[in-house]
């Protein structure tokens, strides 16, 4: 009897437990605040004056900062809960949907290119950018009924393109906008109560709007058809809620910058604690978000020497975002089966060797063109003879470096696509090149000014660790395409947040990292060319013996094992090879170029289907694409140059978007 009662009425007990836990956490937060006040460093100087200063610091910096952390956290938690609910997507939040990156891009554009725009409130600019990004993401996944996996992928790509644009602008106008990066990483330090005062009314409006929308929201927990049959206007509700969520997130972004992944974490924790109904989740998320951000910010202050922040709170919360995303992945279910295979293989070339010869001729033409043709004040100039010889030492290394890097990334992408059997896999999408960046960041922290070989080594370690970790995490699902892609999104986000920690410092190390991110070949000399060619030869040669592995592995573990292949060993060897190729390639052109995705793809679309032919074609195409991009990047805004990696990303990003939208059309 007793047992029965326990099972029948678990509610009160759980409720009391929750209340106790909540009280405990509230006490902890209060303790943190007291610690902050108590440990505040004493102000030097004459006692009377110091006391005044101390109280000014306490009441105009420390207190508003604490209040702001609570408010911003609550707003982001609420925004995340709304986004997740309305998109039925447990990994939706301002960071994963591209809202944060879009808001940041809009503010960077305003600051760097059109200062007149700054007459508008920052919040409006940020809101505009965020809404635009979200609109692109939703448009891309609209025909797939906002399938969570497609939304996550589109969000990642939009984030990537927006970041590439932001970096390009920052590098072009460094003197004006470097501060954007410090702001961009979410520093909460305050001089007065203005931030708090502007956020309070917005949060209140947001809370009231949420309460008003609660009923349609609750119905939206069902699927669209059921909600419609209950008489809810789905699109109107959805757009109202999305606008509200973006507005909340953009307000926070405009006031304190990007606070990564808080909107992801807060609702997830709320659900984990047992919040079940829509009301419970939204309120829970707001409260937990407030607590989380306050705790993160207080800890950063307490841990930093003399109350200088160890890291901006936004960067600190982003650090937890990556692992959390990985943790949430098993819960994410694609509502539609992601049919990635349908993109590929339109035709087969009947004579692939002839095709390869044509490609080779084309790439040679690009190579010679890039060597001989340049821009000058009177338009395009041909350099032949003596002037050609003069220019050769400048042009040859960077062209060779670009071509070699392109070829390496292409091969890396091809291997990744074949071992995971996933046509969207590539160093950039799987976060492997960003993993190399994380390695680079660590070595910048440890060494200060590392030599190129040390940097290359660190990147290789970072890339290998990232890729092996990802493979290990997704192996259990049999490398299902959505798991692989989502783990890639998570790995990339984690690596980017590690990089943000350094970027936020705003010192020389940030500049080195920013330069690497942009993938500039301006300073590529014989060393870079040598690394590119040497690594290409050494790393691609073993593949001559792996053709059969590359044919069998896309068929999946069961078939490969049935044929007697040592699957784990083959995968491991190829994965290490691909990660090393990625590290060497992105050492030269940065992590954003997307060559690793585009080149193997183009090779397939041209009809090179056998692994050997596809490999050679991808090498030629990768080299050709980056050599051509390098050439164009010298020409289009002469006398300035666009960094190669960014330029390539800006060309390839739209291609990837087109691929995603086309896929959605053909497979449903």
């Amino acid at each position, binding site marked *: 009897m007793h047992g029965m009662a326990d099972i029948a009425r678990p509610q009160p007990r759980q409720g009391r437990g929750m209340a106790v836990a909540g009280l405990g956490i509230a006490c902890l937060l209060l303790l943190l605040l007291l610690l902050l006040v108590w440990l505040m460093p004493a102000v030097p100087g004459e006692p009377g004056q110091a006391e005044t200063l101390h109280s000014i610091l306490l009441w105009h910096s420390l207190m508003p900062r604490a209040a702001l952390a609570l408010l911003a956290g609550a707003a982001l938690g609420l925004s995340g809960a709304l986004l997740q609910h309305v998109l039925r997507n447990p990994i939706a939040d301002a960071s994963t949907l591209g809202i944060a990156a879009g808001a940041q891009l809009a503010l960077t554009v305003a600051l760097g290119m059109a200062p007149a725009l700054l007459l508008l409130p920052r919040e409006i600019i940020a809101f505009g950018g965020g809404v635009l990004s979200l609109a692109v993401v939703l448009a891309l996944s609209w025909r797939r009924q906002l399938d969570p996996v497609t939304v996550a992928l589109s969000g990642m790509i939009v984030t990537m393109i927006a970041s590439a644009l932001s970096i390009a602008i920052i590098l072009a106008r460094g003197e004006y906008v470097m501060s954007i990066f410090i702001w961009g990483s979410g520093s909460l330090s305050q001089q007065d109560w203005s931030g708090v005062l502007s956020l309070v009314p917005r949060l209140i409006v947001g809370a009231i709007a949420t309460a008003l929308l609660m009923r349609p929201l609750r119905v939206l927990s069902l699927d669209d058809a059921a909600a419609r049959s209950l008489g809810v206007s789905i699109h109107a509700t959805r757009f109202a809620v999305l606008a509200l969520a973006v507005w909340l997130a953009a307000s926070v972004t405009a006031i304190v910058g990007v606070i990564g992944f808080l909107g992801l974490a807060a609702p997830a924790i709320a659900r984990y604690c047992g919040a079940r109904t829509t009301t419970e989740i939204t309120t829970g998320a707001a409260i937990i978000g407030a607590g989380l951000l306050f705790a993160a910010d207080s800890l950063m202050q307490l841990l930093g020497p003399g109350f200088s922040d160890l890291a901006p709170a936004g960067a600190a919360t982003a650090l937890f975002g990556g692992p959390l995303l990985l943790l949430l992945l098993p819960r994410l279910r694609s509502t539609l089966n992601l049919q990635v295979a349908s993109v590929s*293989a339109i035709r087969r070339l009947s004579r692939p060797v002839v095709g390869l010869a044509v490609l080779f001729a084309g790439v040679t033409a690009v190579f010679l063109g890039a060597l001989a043709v340049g821009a000058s004040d009177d338009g395009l100039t041909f350099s032949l003879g003596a002037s050609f010889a003069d220019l050769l030492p400048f042009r040859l290394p960077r062209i060779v470096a670009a071509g070699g890097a392109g070829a390496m990334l292409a091969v890396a992408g091809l291997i990744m696509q074949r071992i995971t059997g996933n*046509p969207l896999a590539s160093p950039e999408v799987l976060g492997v090149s960003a993993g190399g960046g994380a390695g680079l960041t660590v070595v910048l922290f440890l060494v200060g000014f590392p030599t190129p070989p040390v940097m290359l080594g660190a990147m290789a370690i970072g890339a290998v660790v990232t890729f092996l970790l990802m493979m290990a995490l997704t192996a259990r699902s049999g490398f299902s395409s959505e798991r692989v892609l989502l783990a890639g999104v998570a790995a990339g986000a984690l690596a980017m947040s590690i990089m943000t920690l350094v970027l936020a410092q705003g010192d020389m190390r940030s500049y080195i990292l920013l330069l690497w991110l942009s993938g500039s070949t301006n300073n590529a000399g014989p060393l870079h060319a040598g690394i590119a060619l040497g690594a290409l030869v050494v790393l691609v040669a073993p593949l001559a013996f*792996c053709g059969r592995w590359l*044919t*069998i592995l896309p068929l999946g573990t069961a078939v490969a*094992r049935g*044929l*007697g292949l040592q699957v784990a060993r083959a995968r491991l060897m190829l994965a290490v090879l691909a990660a090393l190729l990625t590290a060497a390639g992105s050492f030269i052109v940065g992590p954003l170029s997307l060559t690793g995705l585009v080149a193997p793809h183009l090779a397939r679309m041209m009809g090179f289907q056998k692994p050997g032919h596809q490999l050679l074609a991808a090498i030629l195409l990768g080299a050709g694409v980056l050599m051509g991009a390098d050439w164009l990047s010298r020409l289009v805004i002469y006398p300035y140059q666009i960094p190669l990696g960014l330029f390539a990303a800006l060309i390839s990003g739209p291609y990837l978007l087109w691929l995603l939208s086309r896929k959605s059309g053909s497979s449903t």
Partner: protein
Amino acid sequence: MVEQGVPDSFLSLRGVGFSVDKKVILSGIDLDVAAGSVCGLVGPNGSGKSSLLKIIARQVTPSAGSVAWGGAPATDWSNRAFARHVAYMPQFTPGADGMTVRELVALGRFPWHGTLGRFGDSDRRAVDDAIARTELETFADRRVDGMSGGERQRAWIAMMLAQDARCLILDEPTSALDLAHQAGVLSLVQTLARERGLTVIVVLHDINLAARYCDTITALNSGHVLMSGTPADIMQQDSLRRIFGVEMGVFNHPHHHQPVSYLL
């Protein structure tokens, strides 16, 4: 009936158990398969027949018990030697992206030539033979992913034939096919087994198909072997009730006189 406990029988399982995350899927499975027979595994959903098949095919390792092929423990076989002896087709064959039928069938020669060995005349002959035997000559240079379900299934069976193994293991080979193709695929498998003396182990959903094409049937229920015998032994009213938990009737087919069951 198969003789029990012969040490070097073609395939014998002793006390095989399998659990995932403390959930018991199979326990105490004893099973012997005679060389040259077509052995069907049947049972309701979740009875563990697919897991058992994966253990037999060495796709997963059992948590308890032993599997022996020709008297030697399965773990003693090298990967390629095992693949030369046993060919396995998963329930869902993967999309052979952009490959032609001939290229797919040629993959079946991997256990023979390995990673670096030459693709020689004997390999070529085996591939041609497998394509001819499955009547895929006209499709040989067509792309696998552009073919219909039944043709695709035949292409995968051709790959298993090219593998030249003594035993074929098939996991619900007919699940995605219409009636005509179900019969076509199973009668092809049955004929091949007779002609070449192959042993076939096949999971089937449909008890009538199993009775029609198998020499012996092993019925599983909630992780145990419930009964094992000829189709005539299994196709009894009370046996079927014990296996599937519903009342079923049996009558003899008017033409080939094999038992056919139906829901009561």
